[in-house]
């Protein structure tokens, strides 16, 4: 049996760890509330934009299209992986990575948002082109280089398809990895996004367009594409914080159980020691008689 002092030391270290995990849990839950709010609010905006864009598409009959909608055979695929910058968030990143291995082609180019999956992607021989770190608030300035890279790659024909894989925020306990096509924009995807929200919608293709279809399309498409990426990153952030909160809560509880068990062991050891001492004394007394 471990000595009294050893057990005491272990209790102390477990207690320290539990204090840290507890603090992290609180930080994560505060951040989560904000991230969650941003992600949920953003969804309404996305659906509204998708709704307008879909109607615009329906109304356009002469096939006027923007370079962002061009369907091409040639070119590579670009995949943006939205992971996290820090660990300690349960199985979030490993689940996402499993999904990447299953659903994404090995010969595609990869961009990561958040550095956690870089090493794993490299180990599997995926071609990592760039990696970005985005702060909790998801500022426009931080996202600019990503937009430029993606847009340039797509318009100059290097890539024929851009996909994003991220953890969709369902609720605090559940986050689901999801693969979404970002470019080229297609009608089916718009319908899917537009249907997310409760905006009433009938098929209607008789809109007047002002000032003219081309200007409208050129203004609204980049906006839509940009916001979609922002939205996915926000979802990723919300998922990260909630996963971390849940993981840290579990860790704190585990630590508590562990402390309980160790304390029991400690008391047992102490009791044994006392009994032993008593035995020694009585044996000595008997021997003296």
């Amino acid at each position, binding site marked *: 049996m471990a000595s009294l002092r050893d057990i005491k030391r272990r209790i102390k270290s477990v207690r320290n760890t539990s204090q840290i995990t507890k603090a992290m849990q609180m930080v994560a839950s505060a951040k989560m509330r904000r991230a969650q709010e941003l992600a949920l*609010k953003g969804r309404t*905006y996305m659906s509204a934009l998708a709704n307008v864009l879909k109607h615009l598409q329906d109304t356009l009959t002469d096939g006027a299209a923007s370079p962002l909608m061009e369907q091409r055979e040639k070119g590579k695929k670009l995949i943006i992986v939205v992971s996290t910058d820090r660990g300690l968030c349960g199985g979030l990143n490993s689940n996402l990575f499993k999904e990447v291995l299953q659903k994404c082609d090995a010969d595609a180019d990869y961009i990561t948002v958040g550095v956690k999956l870089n090493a794993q992607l490299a180990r599997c021989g995926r071609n990592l082109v760039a990696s970005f770190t985005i702060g909790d608030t998801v500022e426009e300035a931080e996202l600019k280089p990503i937009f430029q890279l993606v847009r340039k790659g797509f318009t100059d024909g290097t890539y024929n398809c851009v996909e994003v894989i991220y953890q969709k925020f369902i609720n605090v306990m559940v986050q689901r990895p999801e693969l979404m096509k970002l470019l080229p924009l297609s009608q089916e995807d718009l319908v899917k996004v537009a249907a997310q929200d409760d905006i009433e919608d009938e098929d209607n293709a008789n*809109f007047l*367009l002002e*000032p003219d279809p081309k200007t409208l399309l050129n203004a609204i498409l980049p906006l839509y594409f940009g916001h979609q990426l922002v939205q996915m990153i926000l979802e990723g952030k919300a998922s990260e914080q909630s996963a971390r909160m849940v993981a840290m809560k579990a860790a704190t509880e585990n630590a508590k159980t562990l402390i309980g068990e160790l304390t029991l062991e400690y008391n047992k050891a102490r009791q044994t020691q006392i009994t032993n001492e008593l035995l020694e004394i009585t044996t000595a007394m008997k021997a003296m008689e």
Partner: protein
Amino acid sequence: MALHLKIITPMRTAVDTEVASVLVPSVQGEMEVLPGHADIIAAMDNGELTYRPVQGTTQSVFIGGGFLQVDGEQVMLVTDTVLEAHEIDTDSVEEAVAKAQEAYRNQSSVLSREESTHLAAGIARQLAMLEYRRKKHL
């Protein structure tokens, strides 16, 4: 018959109410939407949006560009920025405008075309914001 007006931004749904009419700043000039308006999708300019709720007095907000969609009785406006007059802080906006104009003048040779367009659009938006604020308080 009433229209249902929704103003949606990335941060919130700013307005969601029954209105009798809406006056919007489209890129081709002001446009009033009344019940029975033809279905339309229109690009918006920076400026003042005025709406008359079914009950109550006329309200107005500042919008920073965006798109308007009229689909039957549903009027939906999707925009980046919605501000009420009291939310605009004149001093800080003026300061931002001065800074941006300075940057625009001094570095126009260094900036890419995209960047300078972006900057110019930002200045135009802030000037429109000030204009709106002035109009409301004088």
